[in-house]
C-alpha cells in the first residue's frame, strides 16, 4: 500500500514538473499531445524508478534548506570557475605541473542525497574527481595535484568547504 502511495506521489510530481517544464515550450498553450506525452513519461518514471529516488525527499520542502541552497549556488559556481582555470592552466602549461593520485577522505554526512551532492560537488571543483565511496563514510578521490595523502589533511583540503553547506541543505 505504501509502495503504491509512493508511486502515485512520484507520478503526480513528475506530471507537474512536465507541465511546468513544457508550458513555455508550447508558446503558452498546453495541448492534448503534450499532456498525453507527460502522463506516459510520468508513469514510466514513477513505476520504474521509484526505488532509486531518495527516501527522505520530504525534508527538501523547507524554507531554511531553500535559503542555504540559494547561498550555496553562487559559492558552487565560484569553485567551478576556479576549477576551470586550474585545469586550463595545467593543460596549457608546457611542463604540465601535475602529480596525480587517489586519496581517501572521510565524510560525516549520512543521508544518500547528501553524499551524492558532496560527490558531485567534489567532481566539479578544483583538481578532484570522486572515484568511489564506501558504506562507512569514506570517499576515494582522484586528485590531480596531491598535497597530502593523510586522510584528515586531504579531507580538510577537499571536502570541508562543501560539507558545511551540504549538511545544512540535505540533512
Amino acid at each position, binding site marked *: 500500500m505504501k509502495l503504491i502511495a509512493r508511486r502515485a506521489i512520484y507520478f503526480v510530481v513528475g506530471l507537474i514538473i512536465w507541465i511546468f517544464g513544457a508550458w513555455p515550450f508550447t508558446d503558452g498553450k498546453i495541448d492534448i499531445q503534450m499532456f498525453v506525452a507527460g502522463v506516459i513519461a510520468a508513469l514510466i518514471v514513477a513505476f520504474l524508478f521509484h526505488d532509486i529516488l531518495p527516501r527522505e525527499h520530504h525534508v527538501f520542502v523547507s524554507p531554511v534548506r531553500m535559503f542555504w541552497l540559494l547561498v550555496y549556488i553562487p559559492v558552487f559556481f565560484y569553485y*567551478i570557475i576556479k576549477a576551470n582555470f586550474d585545469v586550463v592552466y595545467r*593543460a596549457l602549461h608546457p611542463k604540465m605541473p601535475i602529480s596525480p593520485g587517489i586519496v581517501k577522505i572521510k565524510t560525516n554526512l549520512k543521508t544518500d542525497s547528501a553524499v551524492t551532492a558532496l560527490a558531485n560537488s567534489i567532481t566539479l571543483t578544483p583538481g578532484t574527481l570522486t572515484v568511489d565511496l564506501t558504506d562507512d563514510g569514506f570517499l576515494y578521490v582522484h586528485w590531480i595535484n596531491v598535497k597530502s595523502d593523510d586522510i584528515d589533511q586531504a579531507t580538510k583540503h577537499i571536502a570541508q568547504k562543501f560539507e558545511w553547506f551540504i549538511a545544512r541543505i540535505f540533512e
Partner: protein
Amino acid sequence: MTDVIGYILITIGVLFDIFGCIGLVRFPDVYNRLQASTKCVTLGTIMLLVGVALISGVGPTASRAVVCAVFILITSPTAAHAIAKGSYASGVKLWEKSVVDKYAEEAGKKES
C-alpha cells in the same frame, strides 16, 4: 545589450570547451583526462546554453536551453564518476608517475 552578453558567454564557453579538449589530449591517463573533460566541458557547455538563452529571449528556445543546462550540471559529474569507477574496476592503471593510490587497498580487499 543582452545580445552582446550572450555572444561573450558563447565565446568564453567555446574557449573552455577547446581548452578541455586540449587537456583531454595532453593529460597522461584516463583519470586526468576525465578531470579535464568533465570540468571544462560542463562549464563551457553551460555558458554556451546560457548565452543562447540570453540571445533568443524569453520563449521556447530559452526554456529548453536552461533545462538542458541543469541536466548537464547534474549528469556530467555522475557520468565521470561512473567512468572512473568502471575503468578502475576493469584494470586501467594510473599514470606511472602518480603519487599515491589509496584505492588499490580497497579494490584488493574486495577481490580477496
